[in-house]
């Protein structure tokens, strides 16, 4: 049984209220940080913890904090990224729904560390219930003296606000989020300048994912060194994994980084195997943007080592045979899933969500969607697969923000690993509209094929 740092008390009745949360040791990190630590010392602890951004990019949080410019007389902001729109990811919604005070506690400590006196939690607009939950929790914390003027008599002031977006995946990109928070279209900004220099209202700003900010709480309570002992290598601490798709027990799991993927999928402690007695065909391990892998490659690396749920192990083999941990959006596909249809679904998503600023992404995502649509509906050509790879290569790396890459990778990886299924959709067009390709040679996880 792995350690739970974030979700330990999630099943305690009333944990969403201040009093119960406090009785379980909540807000201890605020007292410790504000009364006994300097902002620099907090940043140092977060650096020592090795915490990496939980939103998807995996950039070290402490390092991001240390880049924050601190010009005299200029306001600094902490903005929490709760846009959570990556298909497959639903951990932040879960955390905010059931244990909202954890996020608020993390926001107070983090804002203090960064010298911010006004902080915003930006949520995707669809999360109106969570807006209400957080606003209630903020009011409770304020009534108890943990927010507002002169917090706990330390002289530190902090106002915390929740801001709903309007329904746009792109606002999960930090500069698009800042644009949206300023009341504009969510068009990502050209970097540099980075938000650490010129972010919200042109002021130095740090944008962190909900889970990253929540993780600051155990880091301060237990110390960065202790936190770093959990996990494996440079993947320290615990991670929330959103498990969905054809799993017996889908849901949000907190894992110690380094759990074997096979254990995560099949053990009863986690997902309990594939639903309805089916076999596993493929997995998207870190949200829709990361490369999809067939069952054999997600369970074992190309060197036949067991693959682990960690930043390094999942990306072992690069994009040829590996993927990424990303945001931890884990989607399992059983033998009945059609990879072509799923890839078309993803391509449509990215076409729909492209902000339209950069031509390669605006046009390319649309072309990919069209080509995949005709493949799925029996009008594809044999040359379409190369065409898709070609388009994806021309998007990748040629856009202001990573949405272009995120749109390109799932298409390119699906063709890389499942080309025969795409070809079958061309050669057996009418059959493909009435039945699925099935498992073919894609490894059954329990009887791993010899061919890797």
């Amino acid at each position: 049984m792995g350690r739970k740092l974030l979700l330990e008390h999630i099943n305690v009745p009333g944990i969403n209220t201040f009093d119960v949360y406090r009785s379980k040791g909540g807000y201890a990190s605020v007292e410790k940080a504000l009364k006994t630590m300097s902002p620099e010392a907090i940043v140092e602890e977060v650096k020592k913890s090795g915490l990496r951004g939980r939103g998807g990019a995996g950039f070290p949080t402490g390092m991001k904090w240390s880049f924050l410019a601190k010009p005299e007389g200029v306001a600094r902001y902490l903005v929490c990224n709760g846009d959570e729109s990556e298909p497959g990811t639903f951990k932040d919604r879960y955390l905010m729904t059931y244990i909202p005070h954890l996020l608020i506690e993390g926001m107070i400590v983090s804002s203090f560390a960064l010298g911010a006196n006004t902080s915003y939690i930006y949520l995707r607009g669809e999360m109106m219930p969570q807006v209400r939950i957080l606003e209630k929790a903020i009011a409770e914390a304020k009534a108890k003296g943990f927010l507002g003027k002169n917090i706990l008599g330390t002289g530190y002031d902090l106002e915390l606000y929740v801001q709903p977006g309007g329904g746009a995946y792109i606002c999960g990109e930090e500069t698009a989020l800042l644009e949206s928070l300023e009341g504009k279209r969510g068009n990502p900004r050209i970097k540099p300048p980075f938000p650490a220099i010129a972010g919200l209202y042109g002021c130095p700003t740090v944008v962190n994912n909900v889970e990253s900010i929540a993780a600051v709480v155990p880091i301060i309570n237990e110390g960065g060194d202790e936190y770093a002992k959990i996990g494996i290598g440079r993947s320290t601490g615990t991670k929330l994994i959103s498990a969905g798709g054809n799993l017996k027990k889908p849901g949000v799991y907190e894992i110690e980084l380094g759990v074997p993927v096979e254990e995560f999928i099949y053990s009863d402690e986690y997902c309990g195997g594939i639903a309805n007695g089916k076999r596993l065909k493929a997995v998207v391990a870190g949200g829709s943007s990361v490369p999809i892998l067939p069952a054999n490659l997600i369970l074992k690396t190309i060197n036949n080592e067991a693959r682990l749920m960690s930043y390094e192990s999942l990306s072992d083999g690069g994009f040829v045979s590996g993927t990424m941990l990303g945001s931890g959006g884990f989607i399992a596909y059983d033998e009945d899933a059609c990879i072509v249809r799923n890839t078309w679904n993803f391509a449509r998503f990215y076409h729909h969500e492209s902000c339209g600023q950069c031509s390669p992404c605006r046009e390319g995502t649309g072309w990919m969607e069209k080509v995949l649509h005709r493949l799925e509906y029996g009008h594809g050509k044999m040359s379409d697969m190369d065409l898709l790879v070609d388009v994806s290569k021309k998007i990748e790396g040629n856009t202001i923000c990573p949405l272009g890459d995120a749109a390109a990778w799932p298409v390119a990886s699906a063709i890389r690993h499942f080309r025969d299924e795409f070809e079958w959709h061309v050669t057996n067009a009418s059959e493909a509209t009435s039945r699925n390709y099935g498992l073919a040679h894609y490894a059954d996880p329990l009887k791993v094929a010899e061919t890797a």
Partner: protein
Amino acid sequence: MLRVDEAQEPVEFSPALISKFDEIVSRYPQGKQKSGLLPILHLVQAEFGWVSAPAMDKVAEYLSILPIEVYEVATFYTMYFLRPQGKYVLEVCRTSGCCLVGAEKIMDHIEETLGVKEGEVTPDGLFSWRGVECLAACGFGPVLQIGPEYTFYENLTNESVDKLISDLKAKAKN
């Protein structure tokens, strides 16, 4: 599609609504009131059921920004309705995770039950429906949400959708 050239009913914001706007704008630094645009548009939509061009003009006036600054935002984000909708808009997630567990069948069922195509309003004005992109509830799919509270309905089946629709019909009568 936004049509600003059509004649549309002028709107008035009630003092209660304006005071909600005031509270939102107080969250931002002096001169940055435009930050309140997205939350304010949500309030307008909750009040009127959709966001009309005259309503947007009013919002622009309130925030001391140009009308185009409101139009460009309202057309960019997917949650704002630029056309009148049914009283209840069923928004069903249509992205990968939910499709694996039957979201497409749920949408077919809704279309059949309500008898209107995606984006259309039922003759009684009660319902419209549409597919939306990932709602961040992939473990509990298929899911749908209904504004303006954006209540979530998870693990949908044809039966639970039927019940939801009849419950909403009963609610609308009372």
